[in-house]
């Protein structure tokens, strides 16, 4: 007997809207002046056009090889969502603003300096970001401190390989990162309203052993292509066991230092954002519980996607040793 079982989440043919009708529907809504009418109620009309905005920022395909992290059971967050839901205050504090306001961002030429307590400081220019180190794919869970998460196929190389090349000296205890400071290109840096009132340039930091961990990635791409501007082009940090705000974007400087460096969110609200920012379901943020999270996948309002948050975002096997003997309730 042939038993056919259907995947519950699969769409039926009848549920799929024809593209022409779909686009037409948007046009009709706009023509109805709906945008204006609802502005009365909500103040601003959210992204009715989020899926159809043209992108001026060009990405290109990258050569990469798969890694041991290419095969994880979690379902990927759709690319469309990864590139339209961003915290990148340099391009606006609202989630949809970076995708809109970063489109004319210039990343070529670019210079990334590796400097500080190293014997062989060096600089990578734009092309070298993609050619000096072999690029591999790492599919990581990204857990935002705001209690939502995504699963993203990053492309990049280990930060450890970059640091080793610079030959750190014995004083190198921490690694400090800096985002580009260019108020002309980054409207959030010149406009307090857009930039959410944080101090620029954005800075972040890791302890040297965290930076050298196998998981710590410098990413230059996602979904097979170079990074979109709103995701931190041309190069960003990815530390999957830490909250997303640690993953500094559009990096121009990696500096090996002796003392614990300042970090942007820690300066702004030290009681809410610690230096370590390790994902920890037991330590709540003052304004929300960290015990669970909403996984952003496909599916609308009724998608049942609330899951329990795992210690170190599920990467404890790889990183728990780094924090042996530390009180993680205090060093959050």
């Amino acid at each position, binding site marked *: 007997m042939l038993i056919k079982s259907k995947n519950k989440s699969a769409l039926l043919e009848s549920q799929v809207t024809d593209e022409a009708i779909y686009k037409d529907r948007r046009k009709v809504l706009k023509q109805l002046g709906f945008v204006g009418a609802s502005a009365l109620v909500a103040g601003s009309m959210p992204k009715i056009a989020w899926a159809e905005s043209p992108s001026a920022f060009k990405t290109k395909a990258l050569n990469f090889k798969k890694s041991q992290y290419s095969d994880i059971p979690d379902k990927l967050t759709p690319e469309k969502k990864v590139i339209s839901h961003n915290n990148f205050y340099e391009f606006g504090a609202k989630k949809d603003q970076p995708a809109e306001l970063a489109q004319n961002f210039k990343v070529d030429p670019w210079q990334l300096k590796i400097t500080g307590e190293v014997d062989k400081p060096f600089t990578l220019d734009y092309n070298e970001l993609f050619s000096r180190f072999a690029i591999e794919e790492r599919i990581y869970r990204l857990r935002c401190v705001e209690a939502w998460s995504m699963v993203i196929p990053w492309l990049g190389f280990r930060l450890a390989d970059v640091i080793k090349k610079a030959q750190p000296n014995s004083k190198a205890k921490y690694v400090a990162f800096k985002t580009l400071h260019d108020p002309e290109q980054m409207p959030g840096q010149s406009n307090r309203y857009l930039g959410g009132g944080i101090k620029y340039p954005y800075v972040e930091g890791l302890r040297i052993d965290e930076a050298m961990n196998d998981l710590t990635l410098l990413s230059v791409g996602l979904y097979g292509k170079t990074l979109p501007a709103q995701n931190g082009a041309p190069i960003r940090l990815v530390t999957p066991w830490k909250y997303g705000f640690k993953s500094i974007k559009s990096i121009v400087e990696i500096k090996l230092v002796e003392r614990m460096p300042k970090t942007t969110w820690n300066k702004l609200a030290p009681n809410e954002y610690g230096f370590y920012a390790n994902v920890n379901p037991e330590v*709540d943020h003052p*304004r*929300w519980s960290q015990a669970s999270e909403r996984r952003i996948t*496909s599916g609308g309002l009724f998608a049942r*996607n609330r899951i329990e948050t795992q210690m170190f975002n599920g990467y404890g096997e790889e990183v728990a040793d780094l924090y042996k003997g530390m009180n993680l309730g205090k060093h959050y």
Partner: protein
Amino acid sequence: MRNFVKILLLKTIIHFAAFIPAVVMYYLAIVDQLGSDPVEEIIHFTGISALNILLITLLVSPVAKYFKQGWLINVRRLLGLYAFFYACLHMLNFLFFELQFDFSLFIGEVIDRPYITIGMLAYAIILLLAVTSWSKIRKKMGKKWQALHNYNYLLVSLVCIHFYWSVKSEIIEPSIYFIMLFILLYQRKDKFKRWFKR
């Protein structure tokens, strides 16, 4: 134009402007066309809408006085009820879509998070105001009705604080709401003075 025609017309406009956006936004959210995180989007939309309508409700009596258009007072209850409507949606969205029916987490969050605590307090007040909005109940309550409905000022203030405490670092948008709140309450300064004299 006779007053009852004007009232009817304005009420019709209010129904259209307040109800249809909710229908369209929920439709977009359900079919996953409301940005990347429809849950966050719909929570924010309903919350800000409730606050906006509350402020419009506070605007009615100063405007009616200033332009000598007493009939305007007749739309105040409808506006207040729409604010209640959006407040209900806002709270239910948080419970159903953000927390996905985790009632124990809901209660925990209400207790642990000051911004949610005062949000719920504000909700309790608007609930009381809404259920006592029937003309019959109003008549029955007599003087007590006005005393109860004066809590509206506390309600709007709590909602503004709730919004301010809920944002991460942005203070400009909440500040604009505080300024509007201040202006609207300032219109009633004589009333407040009278309360404190007694």
